[in-house]
């Protein structure tokens, strides 16, 4: 095992799966360098350098630089997937989903169902999400809940380098279309990542902290904030369980219910906007399935219902923080003691 960045972990997953399986191909804008790139053709490796070196190793028949039109290359990737290839397409920003939504929502997601199980679509769409880099409202959204809403798609939101490699390998080996969300702030995050290929199964949440008082469920980058909050709260005498669902579709409801049954309190942390989101989905799922286990109403820590602001000061306020999570946990602890005092 050695320390690798989130970026390197994704690169290694792509490389190892391409070495293992000749049907795995990459498609995307500037993933090999793009027209006019200085120096070697794969000098860029995409806007974040994630696919760097893969063009050199696998050549232009397996690393395809595409034109700037998601509507056609995401559609082409979905078609290629139905005919025997395993394309990994890079949708540069998840904010561009609108330009290819029919290909994703009405085509890739529906093939297996509408062809009576006779077609499979082993397509992966890697896409970048999240606020924090002053990229403004059209390049900073967190849209995993939008695709989680659509049956036929699997949705993966890794929280660290280890998770990214294992979940991306599983995504590539899966026979259904998978949308794989990479938070742009995480690319430089480092962590222990095994050199060998490994796959993390879908629908199995990772319980990163075990506690007795509050269950914190967090998505993607927010898992790291939740872990830090749990560690700080432990020193203040509040012990938290932290659950990283890993995949929002399928969702590991069993672990959510189990952990809430142990703690009786729930805080959900989601960087996305608060309406019709993973936060609301998780809270309603727990409330309807384990209402009797809840000692107090669950709380959500989310972004406000606004576009991501371009103003740095406002953008920093927009994103859930460790402090806001700690406040929410203290609030669900306090509400119960208020009620106990009133009774």
């Amino acid at each position, binding site marked *: *095992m*050695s320390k690798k960045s989130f970026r390197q972990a994704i690169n290694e997953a792509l490389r190892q799966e391409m070495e293992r399986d000749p049907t795995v191909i990459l498609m995307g804008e500037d993933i090999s360098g793009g027209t006019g790139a200085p120096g070697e053709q794969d000098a860029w490796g995409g806007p974040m350098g994630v696919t760097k070196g893969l063009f050199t190793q696998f050549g232009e028949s397996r690393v395809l630089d595409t034109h700037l039109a998601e509507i056609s290359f995401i559609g082409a990737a979905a078609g290629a997937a139905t005919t025997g290839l395993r394309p990994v397409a890079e949708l540069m920003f998840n904010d561009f989903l609108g330009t290819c939504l029919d290909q994703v929502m009405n085509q890739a997601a529906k093939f297996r169902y509408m062809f009576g199980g006779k077609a499979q679509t082993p397509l992966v769409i890697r896409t970048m999400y999240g606020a924090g880099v002053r990229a403004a409202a059209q390049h900073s959204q967190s849209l995993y809940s939008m695709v989680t809403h659509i049956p036929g798609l699997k949705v993966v939101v890794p929280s660290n380098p*280890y998770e990214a490699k*294992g979940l991306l390998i599983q995504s590539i080996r899966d026979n259904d279309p998978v949308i794989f969300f990479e938070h742009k702030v995480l690319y430089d995050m480092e962590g222990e990542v*095994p*050199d*060998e*290929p*490994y*796959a*993390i*199964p879908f629908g*199995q949440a*990772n*319980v*990163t*902290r*075990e506690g007795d008082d509050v269950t914190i469920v967090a998505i993607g980058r927010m898992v790291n904030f939740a872990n830090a909050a749990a560690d700080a709260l432990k*020193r203040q*005498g509040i012990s938290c369980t932290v659950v990283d669902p890993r995949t929002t579709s399928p969702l590991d409801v069993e*672990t959510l219910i*189990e952990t809430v049954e142990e703690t009786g309190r729930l805080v959900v942390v989601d960087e996305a906007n608060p309406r019709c989101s993973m936060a609301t989905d998780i809270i309603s799922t727990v409330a309807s399935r384990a209402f009797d286990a809840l000692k107090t109403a669950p709380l959500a820590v989310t972004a406000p219902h606004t576009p991501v602001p371009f103003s740095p000061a406002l953008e920093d306020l927009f994103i859930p923080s460790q402090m806001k999570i700690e406040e929410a946990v203290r609030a669900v602890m306090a509400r119960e003691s208020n009620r106990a005092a009133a009774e």
Partner: protein
Amino acid sequence: MSEIHSIVMPKLGLTMQEGLLADWIVAEGDEISAGQHILDIETSKIANSYESPFSGKLHRIVGEVGGTYPVGSLLGVIADAATPAAAVDSFVEEFLANFKPVEAGADAAPSPETATVDGQRMRYLRMGEGEADAVLLIHGFGSDHGTWILNHGALAEGRQVVAVDLPGHGGSTKDVGGTGVSALADRVVSLSKTLGPTRFHVVGHSLGAAVAAHVADKLGASAASLTLIAPVGISADVSADFLDGFLREQRSRKLRPYLEMLSADPSMISVEMVEDVLKAKRVDGAQAALTAIREANLPGGRQSVDIRDIIAAAAYPVQVILGDRDQILPSNGTADLPPSVKRTVIAGSGHVPYLEKANEVNALIQEML
């Protein structure tokens, strides 16, 4: 004047930088004897009881329960009962004034190495240097070199200590080939010939102890001693419940109860330990390799391995270390051992005494060195 001793946050394992002081077992003013359990320490990797290295009166408690302290931080002061309070005060003052926590990365942990032996990759972690005979550490079923977290560094004073990943485990090949303990031992012997030292004290745990017995046997004159901790191969049965659960469960909360069978005190099993086992099992080929190794050596609830003839015939000293509350190999406590074999039963310990009672086990191993 007698010496004043500091009790500091211990470094449990290579990567530890800070630890949580979970509990003081003794009170200020108590008379402490060396080896007495005085503190509980928790890190993300392991929860461990800490034994006092010194005898004397616990004059001062500095570290508070629930506090997180960097490695080396002053937690308490032990000295002769007659030591005046003023001397303890100035000792504490001076310690705190001079204490600087080691910065992250300043003493970077050694990295595992890999070697190709018999055409296959073997990973191992080497610590320590020196001319004395080296030590080989061989982990048990489903584990890897990292399990020696509390032993590896302690044994590596003045000698090389090499902890291997057995085939099918850790970072070693998942293309196991022969799955019996003798075949696994062949790979370890081949690796040992690439390491440099010519003689080895061989230490193994559980299934790795059965491998260790074969390694020592194959090394012949190059074997200096053999230490077998909760070994497979001296009794007949094994917990099928543990092995089935260990192999089957893919989620931390489902796997945990089985891992908790390993130690007498289940709270020793940390979140990270459970996660490390899951990570190891997820590596391509690991599940198949582990299943094959289990079938070859521990089918059903039975041990198909017997090392008693080997250890009876050994020309080097052999010891067996057992826990009195071992749930994995429940009949080891009543096993017949050859009279030449030194046997130590560690009270209050389960299947992993090298983790549960690390100081005692380290001392027993050191006696052989």
